[in-house]
């Protein structure tokens, strides 16, 4: 259109003597957030010129040129709790909490789905799937799942740089072998604009561009780096686990008795006559192999017409089946009636309450498939 003209040299440096230009930072109040200028904004430029002709000052204005800011689609999905959700076998409506942030330069809907496909390296020991999965948005914004209140199943009209908390609510199957279930929340950026319904998933614009149209450009990264997510697909995901920490074990207690001696026959074929010493043997067994039982507490009220033999309680006796193999004080570690003795390492404790005539013994950890015996003695009145 025109031949290349001569670019004039500037009056470089002539402005160096002017005073400092001082501007306050008020412009930042209008600055867009991290997501940037909103999609659909028309950026318009016009230049001004001034000049003089034969000493007469004149001015000119350029054409106005503009372009439309396109939609840079991005999102962040994170687990919104520090650890896995601890659950019990058979628990219903167990909750995992996530947070979805809209990093798009526009208001979007987000469609929510879940996956239980095991992700390599993320959950070792994932051995079951949760059931009856529901995904709900934190409607009242309190960060906690409220059944019946948080009922919306997609994120509606989330503004740029805004976040929403999302809950996955699921049931834990009643299977004693369950240990860990990994679950992944997948959020898909969808069109905003309809406050009453969820929008359609966005698709990247592939057609040749038009300056006047808001194109969709996916800018989301690979959020897990493990092959579950891929970059530039408008999806983000995060994973959490349902971890079984409370489960039932097959706990059983067997009680047996043995007359140790009597005043007449002494220890030789003793009979249960007044004055005889009887030893009771309590054997607690955890029949669930592989699952320890915590804080097993044995309590036993001594029989009527008997008197507890002071400091006769011992724990850790060797047991075979339902019988304490060894009798007498060698049948375990003696405990003090006031509870002041703790068995080293195993941390067994026990006591006798003279008011309630109750024997107590506590076993902090009873490993699966093992038994622990406790014994105490009484005399027949």
């Amino acid at each position: 259109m025109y031949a290349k003209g001569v670019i004039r040299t500037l009056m470089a440096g002539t402005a160096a003597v002017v005073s400092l230009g001082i501007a306050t930072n008020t412009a930042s109040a209008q600055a867009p957030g991290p997501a940037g200028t909103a999609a659909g904004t028309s950026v318009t430029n016009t230049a001004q010129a001034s000049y003089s002709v034969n000493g007469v000052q004149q001015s000119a204005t350029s054409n106005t040129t503009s372009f439309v800011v396109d939609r840079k689609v991005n999102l962040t999905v994170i687990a919104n709790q520090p650890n896995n959700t601890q659950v019990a076998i058979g628990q219903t409506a167990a909750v995992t909490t996530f947070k979805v942030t809209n990093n798009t330069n526009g208001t979007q809907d987000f469609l929510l789905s879940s996956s239980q496909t095991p992700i390599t390296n993320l959950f070792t020991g994932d051995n079951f799937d949760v059931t009856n999965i529901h995904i709900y948005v934190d409607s009242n914004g309190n960060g906690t799942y409220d059944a019946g209140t948080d009922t919306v199943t997609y994120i509606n009209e989330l503004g740029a740089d805004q976040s929403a908390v999302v809950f996955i609510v699921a049931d834990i199957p009643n299977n004693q072998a369950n240990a860990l279930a990994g679950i992944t929340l997948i959020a898909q950026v969808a069109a905003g604009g309809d406050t009453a319904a969820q929008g359609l998933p966005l698709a990247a614009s592939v057609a040749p561009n038009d300056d006047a149209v808001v194109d969709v450009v996916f800018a989301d990264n690979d959020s897990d780096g493990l092959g579950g997510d891929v970059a530039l697909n408008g999806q983000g995901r995060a994973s959490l686990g349902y971890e079984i920490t409370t489960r039932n074990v097959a706990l059983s207690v067997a009680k047996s008795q043995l007359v140790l001696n009597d005043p007449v026959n002494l220890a030789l074929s003793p009979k249960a006559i007044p004055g005889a010493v009887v030893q009771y043997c309590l054997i607690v067994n955890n029949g669930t192999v592989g699952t320890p039982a915590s804080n097993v507490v044995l309590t036993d009220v001594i029989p009527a017409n008997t008197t507890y033999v002071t400091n006769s309680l011992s724990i850790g006796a060797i047991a075979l089946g339902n019988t304490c193999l060894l009798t007498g004080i060698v049948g375990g570690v003696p405990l003090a009636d006031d509870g002041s003795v703790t068995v080293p390492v195993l941390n067994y404790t026990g006591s006798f309450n003279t008011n309630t005539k109750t024997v107590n013994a506590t076993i902090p950890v009873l490993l699966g498939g093992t038994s622990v015996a406790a014994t105490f003695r009484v005399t027949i009145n």
Partner: protein
Amino acid sequence: MITRPMIAAVLAATAAAASAAAGPLQVTSSILVESRAAAADGTTRIALVKPSKVTPGDKVIFVLAYRNTGTQPLSNVVLDNPLPRQIAYRSANPGSPAPDVSVDGKTFGSLATLRVRSLDGSTRPASPNDVTSVRWRLASPLAAGSQGQFAFQAVLK
């Protein structure tokens, strides 16, 4: 290696909407973006194209072309481009003289001479993000029929 085509060649195709200003000085504003493509010789060729797909953080190039369409020389020519508020100034485009810049629209100078007052009353050196307007002055009169252009790079906020 990156080769850079002459801007004027691209402008010839994009400045079709030149203003029909009445005065002798015709000023045409264009906004362009870089399009990178691999050339046959293995280099990357950057072409300036229409700003069809622009998202926050992208680089945009503003070009001001001027031309004396009259019959008399024009003196004291000053081209002033207030920045759209969605645009953050970066630098002069390679090949274009550097503009004087302003952070308040009144005082112009090189960026290094400007300071910005913070909310607490202290001042700090101005950064390219603070620039609100750019300006070029022609040192000598613009002869009848001659023309030229300036360009600067910016990013979309």
